[in-house]
């Protein structure tokens, strides 16, 4: 689906501000895969994400989406339809006078009929945990910060692109909203075969939802593997600015205390079971 070949990206080349923000990245993402892109601030995650729909172009190497080279100007429109990108602070892009019009903007531009537009707007708003009938006529600017973020996100979801690139979509959402949104995106991936690339600082989310993780550090690909592989070998993660998800962190702490436990527990359920194997007593 997406192939990244020896991608290097240099900001402001030839100026005193020249910065290499991505160096020699190679990456394959299959159709229908859920990939979490992790790494500290400044590691190049957002820069990489913006290459997936051609907002940024490689300084060297190339990015292919569905066989389309992102540098091919003739394919630009098709590329934008294929890859939906949600930025950080998406609420800064709100502009319509009511929530319905805001979310309907993309589907309307695609030339869909009225009923299909309405169906998509309803579904997208509900995915983000907003009640369609409550919010559809409200001005987006009357909503709280977290609610605005949900509306902006719904605007991209309503386009229903085959590839969704989400840059910290759940930051600033309350825990229930965060969970609901990611569950919905996961369900979408599984039922429709949507390819999802989730940029996140939240390792619990990565552990729970991603099929595979790619960790960037200083513009280079540092580690790659399933969440179990990444968190099962936690050495160096802390130095890379990442946390272990709590269930893995507790087990790693116990291991360091000399207990024979496995550390690749990703959920509280798994951690609970594993702890019970080493504790005496219990019901």
């Amino acid at each position, binding site marked *: 689906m997406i192939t990244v070949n020896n991608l290097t990206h240099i900001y402001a080349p030839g100026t005193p501000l020249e910065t290499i923000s991505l160096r020699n990245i190679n990456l394959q993402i299959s159709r229908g895969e859920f990939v979490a892109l992790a*790494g*500290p*601030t*400044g590691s190049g995650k957002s820069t990489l994400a913006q290459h997936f729909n051609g907002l940024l172009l490689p300084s060297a190497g190339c990015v292919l989406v569905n066989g389309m080279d992102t540098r091919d100007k003739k394919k630009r429109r098709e590329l934008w339809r294929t890859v939906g990108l949600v930025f*950080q*602070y998406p609420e800064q892009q709100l502009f319509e006078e009511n929530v319905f019009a805001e979310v309907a903007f993309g589907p309307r531009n695609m030339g869909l009929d009225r009923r299909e537009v309405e169906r998509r707007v309803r579904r997208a708003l509900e995915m983000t945990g907003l009640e369609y009938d409550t919010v559809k006529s409200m001005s987006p600017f*009357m*909503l*709280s*910060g*977290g*609610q605005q973020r*949900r509306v902006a996100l719904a605007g991209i979801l309503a386009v229903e692109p085959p590839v969704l690139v989400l840059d*910290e979509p759940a*930051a*600033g*959402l*309350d*825990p*229930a*909203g*965060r969970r609901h949104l990611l569950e919905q995106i996961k369900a979408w991936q599984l039922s429709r075969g949507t390819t999802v690339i989730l940029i996140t*600082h939240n*390792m*619990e989310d990565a552990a729970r939802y991603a099929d595979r993780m790619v960790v960037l550090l200083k513009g280079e690909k540092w580690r790659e593997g399933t969440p179990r592989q990444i968190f099962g070998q936690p050495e160096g993660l802390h130095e890379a*600015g*990442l*946390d272990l998800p*709590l*269930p893995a*962190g*507790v087990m790693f*702490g*116990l291991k360091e*205390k000399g*207990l024979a436990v496995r550390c690749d527990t990703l959920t*509280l359920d798994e*951690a*609970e079971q594993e*702890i*019970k194997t*080493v*504790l*005496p*007593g*219990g*019901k």
Partner: protein
Amino acid sequence: MIEIRGLHFVYNQSAAGSGAALKDIHGDIRRGEFLAVIGPNGSGKSTLARQLNGLLLPTAGTVKVAGMYTNDPARCWEIRRRVGMVFQNPDNQLVAAVAEEDVAFGPENLGLPPPEIRRRVDGALRLTGLGAQRLQAPHLLSGGQKQRLAIAGVLAMRPCCLVLDEPTAMLDPAGRREVLQTLRGLNREEGITVVLITHFMEEVLFAHRVWVLSDGRLVMEGTPQDVFDRREKLQAVNLALPGAVELARRLRNAGYPVPANVLTADELVEALAGLAAGR
């Protein structure tokens, strides 16, 4: 420090259908305390924050800061100097091209003499651990550093209270740790009152006291332990326990004697290691 009495607030009263964002809030924020405020999106957290330094004024009821009512226009600037605000997006709060000039912006606007400005800037950068970055451009700082710089800019105004509206929402784990350590240090060593609005239940653990907002009302308050003990009530407002507290609870329910005061992952590891060793 801050007394809130019968606070009621409606945005844009003329617009039809707009309900109250805050309803009958009563409460005191004590000098020197670390108060965490949690609640779902749209529960009124940010609105409450903006009431604490008069960015918004009560529709009914009062907010009193160090003896001054926020709806007294003559006291507006004095209240804002004493209660400093930090928001979610650090990029929106930084104004200058050099870190220390950004911190100097507030004191310069007070018309202070240059040596005093210098003293304040140096002090604020030291308290936020940014001494080495003083001459850097803010946009080249990491997320955590930017947010600490925003805090430094507020500190240079010598506030007695800091109100932070989800300051860590956009930061990576290392940045979150930096900002929280900075806040704890300011609270413990400098005696600055901290009001931290957050969605991260783990950050609540640092607080002396917690307020839970739901639908514009203050529905729970107490120490973190008190609040976590009322799990059903938390769930009713869609909030879950922090992971370590939840795991400890499950193990207790399964018959393991994990102490009830376990709040953090480290405490849980200690408790479990003790149990495994038969202590």
